[in-house]
């Protein structure tokens, strides 16, 4: 039951912290919170070593739902795919827990924070380790819950509460589609067990398969903040920064990618879906990157960046370069977490200020932070030999190959363009935050508890590329290619050199442009283009006014007019009519004997008349 232990540890941490809220000392709470995840990481490390993992180590815990033909147990599955995720989740998770212990040091709701965070880890592990799609969905929704709770952690701020709610609701939209897809799948394939889906995939009708996968992908667009359901993620930055790092960059938002990887037998078989995934991914990548160009909130820059990078991952999944997608997922977890932690460090130093117009010149006082941020930024920009370079390069390479000169080449072009924009906006952020200008106030460097995780992540961001670098033997990719049952990409089929160079070139060009543009705190607005970006290419007003406003108005109209006037009005109208009839019946009773006699005689005439004449 070693496997269940991985989930049980953070779950226990959650229970202790939740029930002990208000009674546990700050120290105990932190120790439980951090310790449980640390132990889970250790357990994960031990577990992935097990030989069973290669063929899938499955532990069935109990029969969960059984109704009619539908029978499903609840169990965990550790294979080469989930191994990657488990390590990322518990590993990065652990680092961020450590960081949090410092970052949240002054918060009164310390226990609650760790309770939520532990619950998140547990939920994420359920998502990752679940042996059925339904179990994955359990984790899927639970991480959404944790996200809601943590975004709205400072619930006394109306903006935070609203952001949490928005995140949950937007996710729910995707989840509803996911749920339908899952149900469709369960009914057509007869199972939701991953181990049996592979064989079932071939038996499904092509149309059904397409619909199922599209519905599931719709779910992924919610969770992973892709077009059109991306809006919640920028708002999610209302949460504490470590949360943004952990949930809204490194782990939860990648669940969509993981889900597609998990269901690769279906997605690879489906006719239309991969193309849709690739296009949506590529479009989102560029779309979000352009918006990141015009943000002033450092965390929002990173948020849009995350959306954009997730787009890359979907692009990879769409072109069926699944190992590449997972690789980027991993490296992104490192460098984006790093960027967020660094940003958190800035906030910590500046007393919560995150608007880049009020930042600047922090390179000197915040030495660790600056280094961390720069490494992360370079990795993000795809500068070799940092981790981001390898994964992003691989994705673009694969997408170019997959296009085979066809129309899908547009996807590759979008990706390439995004690489350039990415470099521009991250350079802008770095320059505005750390570069020129005077620092305001008296910023001080973060305590060691926050510094060390930054350092570790910086190292991973630098060296993480080794997981997929040819030079290092590509251990991750080999493992995953085995898992996806793809023939290994031998160096023999090495892509053309120009293809390998064009990505870093785009990145470097972007850095140069960015530096040129934003050096010296000039902040060009990019003209009309900037306005377009700020308005999310026109989507923002559509969402706010037309969809949300419209729905609210319809709701109000239904409640005030249809409900009260029409439906209830009919009921009350009937009652009023009966009451009026009652009044009329009373008026018949005039009080005059002669009227009564006349009524009596009339009744007699009618009765006899009817009887005799009928």
């Amino acid at each position, binding site marked *: 039951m070693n496997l269940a232990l991985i989930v049980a540890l953070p779950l226990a941490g959650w229970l202790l912290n939740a029930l002990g809220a208000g009674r546990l000392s700050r120290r105990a709470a932190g120790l439980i919170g951090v310790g449980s995840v640390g132990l889970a990481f250790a357990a994960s490390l031990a577990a992935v070593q097990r030989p069973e993992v290669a063929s899938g180590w499955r532990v069935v815990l109990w029969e969960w739902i059984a109704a009619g033909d539908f029978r499903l147990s609840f169990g965990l599955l550790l294979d080469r795919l989930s191994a990657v995720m488990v390590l990322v989740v518990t590993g990065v998770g652990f680092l961020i827990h450590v960081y949090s212990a410092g970052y949240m040091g002054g918060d009164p709701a310390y226990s609650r924070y760790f309770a939520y965070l532990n619950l998140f880890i547990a939920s994420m592990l359920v998502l990752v380790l679940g042996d059925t799609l339904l179990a994955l969905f359990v984790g899927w929704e639970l991480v959404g819950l944790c996200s809601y709770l943590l975004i709205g952690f400072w619930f006394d701020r109306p903006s935070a509460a609203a952001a949490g709610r928005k995140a949950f609701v937007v996710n729910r939209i995707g989840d509803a589609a996911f749920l339908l897809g899952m149900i469709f799948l369960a009914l057509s394939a007869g199972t939701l067990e991953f181990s049996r889906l592979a064989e079932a995939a071939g038996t499904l009708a092509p149309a059904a398969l397409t619909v199922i996968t599209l519905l599931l992908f719709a779910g992924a667009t919610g969770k992973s903040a892709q077009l059109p359901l991306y809006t919640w993620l920028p708002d999610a930055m209302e949460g504490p920064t470590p949360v943004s790092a952990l949930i809204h960059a490194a782990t939860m938002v990648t669940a969509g990618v993981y889900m597609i990887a998990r269901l690769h037998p279906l997605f690879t078989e489906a006719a239309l879906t991969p193309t849709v995934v690739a296009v949506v991914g590529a479009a989102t990548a560029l779309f979000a990157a352009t918006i990141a160009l015009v943000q002033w909130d450092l965390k929002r820059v990173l948020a849009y960046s995350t959306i954009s990078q997730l787009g890359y991952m979907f692009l990879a999944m769409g072109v069926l370069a699944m190992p590449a997608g997972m690789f980027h997922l991993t490296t992104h977890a490192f460098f984006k977490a790093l960027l967020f932690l660094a940003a958190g460090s800035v906030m910590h130093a500046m007393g919560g200020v995150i608007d880049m117009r009020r930042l600047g010149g922090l390179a000197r006082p915040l030495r660790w932070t600056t280094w961390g941020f720069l490494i992360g930024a370079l990795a993000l920009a795809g500068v070799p030999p940092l981790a981001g370079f390898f994964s992003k390069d691989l994705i673009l390479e694969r997408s170019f190959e997959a296009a085979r000169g066809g129309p899908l080449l547009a996807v590759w072009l979008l990706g390439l363009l995004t690489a350039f924009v990415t470099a521009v906006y991250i350079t802008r952020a770095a320059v505005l935050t750390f570069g020129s200008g005077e620092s305001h106030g008296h910023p001080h460097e973060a305590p060691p508890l926050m510094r060390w995780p930054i350092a570790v992540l910086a190292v991973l961001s630098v060296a993480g590329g080794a997981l997929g670098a040819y030079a290092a033997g590509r251990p991750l990719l080999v493992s995953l290619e085995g898992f996806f049952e793809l023939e290994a990409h031998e160096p023999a089929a090495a892509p053309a050199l120009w293809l390998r160079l064009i990505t870093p070139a785009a990145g470097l060009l972007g850095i140069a442009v960015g530096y040129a543009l934003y050096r010296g705190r000039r902040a060009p607005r990019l003209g009309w283009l900037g306005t377009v970006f700020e308005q999310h290419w026109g989507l923002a007003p559509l969402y706010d006014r037309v969809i949300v406003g419209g729905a609210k108005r319809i709701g109000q109209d239904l409640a005030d007019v249809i409900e009260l006037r029409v439906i209830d009005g009919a009921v009350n109208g009937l009652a009023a009519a*009966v*009451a009026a*009839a*009652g*009044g*009329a*019946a*009373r008026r*018949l*009773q005039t*009080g005059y*004997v002669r*009227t*009564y*006699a006349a*009524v*009596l005689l*009339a*009744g*007699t005439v*009618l*009765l*006899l008349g*009817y*009887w*005799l004449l009928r």
Partner: protein
Amino acid sequence: MPAAADLRMLGPEMLVAGTALLVLVWATFLPPQRQHLLRWISAAALAAALAVVLRLGTGAASAFSGMYARDGLTVVLQSAALLGALLALALAGAYVERSHLDAGEFYALLLAAALGAMVMAGSRDLIMVFLGLETLSIPLYVLAAFARTDLRSQEAGMKYFLLGAFSTTFFLYGIALIYGVTGSTALARLAGSPGGPMLRAGVGLLLVGLAFKAALVPFHAWSPDVYEGAPLPVTAYMSVIAKIGAFAALLRIFPGTLTALAGEWRGILAVLSILTMVLGNLAALRQTSLKRLLAYSSIAHAGFILIGVAAGSGRGAWAVAFYLLGYTFMTLGAFAVALRVTRGGEEADAIADLTGLASRSPALAAAMAVFMVSLAGLPPTVGFVGKLYVFTAALEAGQNALAIVGVLASVVSAYYYLRVAYTMFTGEPAAGIAFAGDRWLGGALLAAAVGVLVLGVFPSPLTVFVQQVAQALR
């Protein structure tokens, strides 16, 4: 000359009639403070008569040259009449003595009316029915006007009398026409008659007379005014005894005799029933006087009871009998509560006078709630069982519209009955409200409440009892 067996068969009637005379005479010799003895005697006589009725049982389908019968119908409906009279007597005593009404005459008239209803139950000849009807009605006219210095009581008496006499002429004309066709007033002859327009007209006119007594729409107009104006215990008594007598005769004449014409009169009775249910319930909706509310309620219930007659079957007939017995309990119970509550020594007639009754007397309010629930036909009360029976009868006879209108009318009735219950359980009691009545009233109240509930939960014995009615019709 009547045989001795015939006379023995008349035991209950003679007991009641004799006691009426005894009470009348004795009252003149009794000092005022001992007038309550009259009540004891009357009650004892009614109880004894009830016992004799049950003891005699059925077994004389024809006596007095075929004028009279002691069959299932007689037994069951005479029991109902005696029970109603007994309860009404218990309700009336304290009121009569408090209001200084003439006790001897009051009880004598009460007994006479009971006698009338009993005779109507047993009659197998239209002359007997007519005389029974008058024996029932004339005392009621007098009782309605009994508080003779009270304007409203006078008015009630006059309206009742004039309209009653008016309707009686129609009834008589009906007898005349039937006599013209069959050459006889005996129901047995009527049963075998071939029909024809004159017979139809005769039966139709009979129906008018009986419908007036039972207060069926459109022959009901007298009843709200009379109920409201008559002294409260009289209203209570009237509301049950007149119905028992009228329905006894309706059963005797329609499903009991005119079986050959059933196809014709069932539809007509169904229409009357629907009109009665609808109008009675609608007019009751917006009443503010409790007596008037109960008047319309009694009209409405007449409509429900008529369903059983309109079914034209044995099942319908016993359902009528069951309903009448249940109705006796619940209506007299409701009146008992009304008698309990007084305002400044007078009848507390407004529904609003019951406001907050539950905080003054929870038991009284609970009892009233039971009666109201039963009148509304909700389980677990006798009112529900009665409705179940009549609706079953209607549906069995294919009178679907009757059953559907009936259930919907019941729903409407729930509004005004429950409004009374609601009033009692909310608000603060009004000033000047006091409780009146003696142990007799309390006993009657308890008996009615227990009756309503017990018969609602264990209706089986009573059901078996009333099924005798069906046997009588066969």
